[in-house]
């Protein structure tokens, strides 16, 4: 395929339309099959046995009473479980040794005819331990903090430009603050589920995952299988938020159990409580910020030093300080990450790892600097907006954070803000307005392949093993395929979520639509080049994701501005958030309906994080004691109500554009047609959440959410 053809712009027809989700009817009737709901014949049910110590060795396991229970089919422990091929990933090294690395770790499993019997039998397994002292508390004064080799996914651990100490000494204004963010659990609504069948040397998983192929890539070698001996199926996924981005121990446990009862499907759905120790989570962070600025608020030094935790059995280093490398301009800048390796569950990706806690720290520090300089917080951010990427020196493919801040300020009624604390009181409520920047990198992951086949039904079957975790993949890829093939959306039959389809990269890092979309465009071009506009039945072509030469020349990131009106009750301290507004510069919107839901979802999760979410670890025992859904639940109390009316203000970003994966800078502007609150008469919120938070939880604002997708 020639480069000119590969880069020719698409004729945009379906892209940009607010199409209804093509799997929507199945979802509102509850008939879209999630992993547990797939039809399998004669299943067995698995209930895990979990460690009740945080560190040590299993001394003995007595499963006689469990085995004696009618209906129990098999019990597996490290003493009899099938062997795995590699211990490189200790999280996935399930039932292979007597070692316990954290409380809640799998140490056995009961497989039974019914879920009730499996659960009862699991409670009858008697375990004794040789317990060792454990450590489960993250503190900044630990002496064993260490620098990881790199932070997730492959960023340098530390950076140091210029001379921050000299700059801080010379600065007219300085800020020195430490912020902490809590342990947070992803808690997708659908629990992590695997239905595994082992038969004829083949392993089949119905799995709740953000990447069918990535599960296979990681697990097939572990089970000693060739890729073609393993199939993973996941057409519908009930949310992930990163926790289903990589297989966790339950996938392995289900596979081992299936091996123990060949031919019978084994169903495992984690309980909500088990998800707190077995499905990843966001590390708590302790962030030390030092800022130096001149009298006009121009930054001369930024220091962001992060302390966070990983598990002793497997390292995960959240990239908390990475966004600090690009958010604002400063000639002197130092960022660092230090980890404490603790006897705790394995942390992992949670919605925008790094950006979520890191931008939160940045934005609190900037607000403190604004106060110290006597500057409006928006003006301070505008003064420090870097013209090029501070770290690489590359030009932005499109930044437009200043535009988002200005447009948001206008729509939110920022000019009515009084910066003096406690200056506005309405009926016993103190009213304040706040702003924060958002950012998220533009990732595209190489490796996807799409195939297109023209069928007897005169439709194009477009196949790629992509995932839809609520992000709208089914619909958005259909729109891209339609424009890429130059046909109506009705002529596309999208097929995703199965390793029998061509390889797709994971739904993670907001990379899905960019990676898969561009791949589909390449496949469509290959198809037309080979078969023309009037293909014969059965005509087929496929292609992999093409390279984007602009990736090397430009710094590519999304940006956004978040606004919130917060009310605090003078007497009770109760917090309410009646209005939120987000203005985003995020590239081409494939489907405004689903994109809007992504924005609202992200803002709502940010609200929930800020006011409600904290998984409380009891360091004496090493486990999360708040193992329920109340935290995310309370976002309901923050149940926002907003009415957007579309996207506007197009500003094309040619450099991020590649076929259907185009990224065209836009401001997402939404207008609330309903009467705005009296003190903001005439001001329509943009992409806003008019939240009526009736929170009984009193918390401090801890997390600002960057714009990203659902992973």
């Amino acid at each position, binding site marked *: 395929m020639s480069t000119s053809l590969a880069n020719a712009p698409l004729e945009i027809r379906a892209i940009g339309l607010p199409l209804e989700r093509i799997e929507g009817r199945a979802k509102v009737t509850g008939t879209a099959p999630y992993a547990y*709901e797939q039809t399998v014949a004669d299943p067995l049910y698995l209930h895990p046995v979990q460690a009740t110590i945080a560190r040590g060795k299993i001394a003995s396991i007595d499963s006689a009473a469990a085995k004696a229970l009618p209906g129990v089919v098999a019990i597996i422990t490290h003493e009899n479980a099938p062997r795995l091929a590699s211990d490189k990933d200790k999280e996935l090294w399930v039932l292979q040794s007597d070692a316990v690395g954290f409380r809640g770790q799998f140490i056995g499993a009961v497989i039974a005819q019914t879920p009730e019997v499996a659960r009862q039998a699991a409670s009858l397994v008697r375990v004794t331990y040789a317990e060792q002292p454990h450590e489960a508390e993250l503190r900044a004064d630990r002496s064993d903090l260490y620098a990881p080799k790199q932070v997730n996914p492959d960023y340098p651990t530390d950076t140091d430009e210029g001379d921050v100490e000299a700059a801080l000494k010379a600065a007219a204004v300085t800020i020195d603050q430490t912020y902490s963010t809590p342990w947070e659990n992803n808690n997708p609504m659908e629990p992590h589920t695997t239905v595994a069948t082992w038969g004829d040397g083949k392993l089949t998983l119905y799995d709740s995952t953000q990447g069918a192929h990535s599960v296979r890539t990681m697990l097939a070698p572990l089970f000693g299988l060739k890729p073609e001996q393993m199939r993973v199926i996941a057409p519908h996924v009930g949310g992930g938020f990163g926790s289903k981005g990589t297989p966790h121990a339950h996938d392995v446990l289900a596979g081992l159990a299936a091996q123990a009862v060949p031919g019978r499907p084994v169903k495992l759905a984690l309980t909500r409580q088990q998800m707190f120790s077995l499905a990843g989570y966001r590390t708590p962070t302790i962030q030390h910020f030092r800022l130096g600025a001149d009298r006009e608020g121009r930054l001369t030094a930024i220091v962001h030093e992060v302390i966070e935790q990983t598990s002793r059995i497997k390292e995960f280093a959240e990239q908390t300080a990475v966004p600090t490398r690009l958010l604002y301009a400063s000639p002197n800048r130092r960022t660092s990450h230090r980890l404490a390796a603790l006897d705790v569950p394995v942390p992992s990706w949670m919605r925008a790892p790094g950006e979520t806690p890191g931008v939160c720290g940045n934005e609190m520090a900037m607000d403190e600097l604004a106060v110290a300089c006597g500057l409006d917080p928006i003006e301070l951010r505008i003064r420090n907006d870097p013209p090029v990427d501070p770290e690489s020196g590359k030009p932005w493919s499109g930044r437009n954070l200043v535009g988002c801040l200005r447009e948001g300020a206008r729509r939110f009624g920022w000019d009515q803000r009084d910066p003096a604390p406690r200056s506005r009181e309405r009926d016993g409520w103190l009213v304040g307005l706040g702003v924060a920047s958002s950012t998220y990198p533009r990732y595209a992951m190489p490796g996807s392949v799409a195939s297109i086949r023209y069928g007897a039904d005169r439709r194009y079957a477009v196949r790629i093993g992509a995932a839809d975790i609520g992000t709208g993949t089914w619909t958005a890829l259909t729109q891209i395929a339609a424009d890429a093939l130059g046909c109506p959306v009705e002529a596309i039959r999208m097929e995703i979520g199965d390793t029998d389809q061509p390889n797709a990269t994971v739904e993670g890092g907001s990379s899905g639509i960019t990676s898969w979309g561009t791949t589909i465009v390449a496949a469509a071009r290959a198809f037309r080049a080979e078969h023309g506009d009037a293909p014969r039945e059965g005509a087929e072509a496929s292609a992999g994701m093409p390279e984007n030469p602009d990736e090397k020349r430009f710094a590519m990131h999304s940006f956004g501005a978040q606004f919130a009106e917060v009310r605090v009750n003078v007497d009770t301290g109760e917090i309410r958030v009646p209005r939120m507004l987000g203005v985003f510069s995020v590239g081409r919107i494939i489907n405004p309906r689903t994109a809007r839901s992504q924005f609202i979802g992200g803002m709502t999760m940010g609200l929930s994080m800020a006011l409600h979410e904290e998984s409380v670890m009891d360091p004496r025992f090493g486990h999360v004691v708040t193992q329920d859904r109340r935290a995310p639940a309370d976002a309901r109390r923050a149940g926002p109500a907003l009415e957007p009316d579309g996207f506007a203000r197009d500003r094309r970003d040619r450099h991020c554009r590649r076929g259907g994966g185009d990224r065209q800078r836009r401001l997402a502007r939404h207008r609330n047609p309903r009467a705005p609150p009296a003190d903001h008469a005439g001001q329509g919120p943009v992409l806003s959440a008019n939240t009526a938070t009736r929170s009984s939880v009193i918390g401090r604002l801890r997390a600002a959410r960057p714009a990203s997708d659902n992973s």
Partner: protein
Amino acid sequence: MDARITLHVDGVARSLTVDTRTSLLDALRDHLGAMSPKKGCDHGQCGACTVLLDGRRATTCLAFAVAHDGATIITAQGLANGDGLHEMQRAFLDHDGFQCGYCTPGQICSAVGMLEEAEAGHPSHVTQDLTGPVVLTDDEIRERMSGNLCRCGAYVNIVAAIREVARKEGSA
């Protein structure tokens, strides 16, 4: 201990033998293959398992199947009439009142049950006038739907969908 019971699910009488510990949710999902109600928490906190149980919304994970012998159950699947969607389902589609869809059947059953409660004059925690008819303001909708969680954060759109149906029925 096992028990033989009959459930009328989405218009069909189904007889089954359940462990007396089996929840109504597991009876529907594991025994009858009625997968429309979802299991989000299994302990009454999320509302994903909500159905209309003898005409009223109920979280089936908190009910023992054996205690509901003879019950009539309508799931979100049963709310639809073949290809014809219930107006609440239509409104959820129109307003994109979901993302992953896992909380959705429970939200929809709950919303349908909630509108009937309001119609019948049941007050809620935020109802000001306990004597007159219930007016379903957004505050009322949020309060009355507070047992149904959505981790995808579709609340804005869920409220919009329910508001639209309530308006059509004249209760908002």
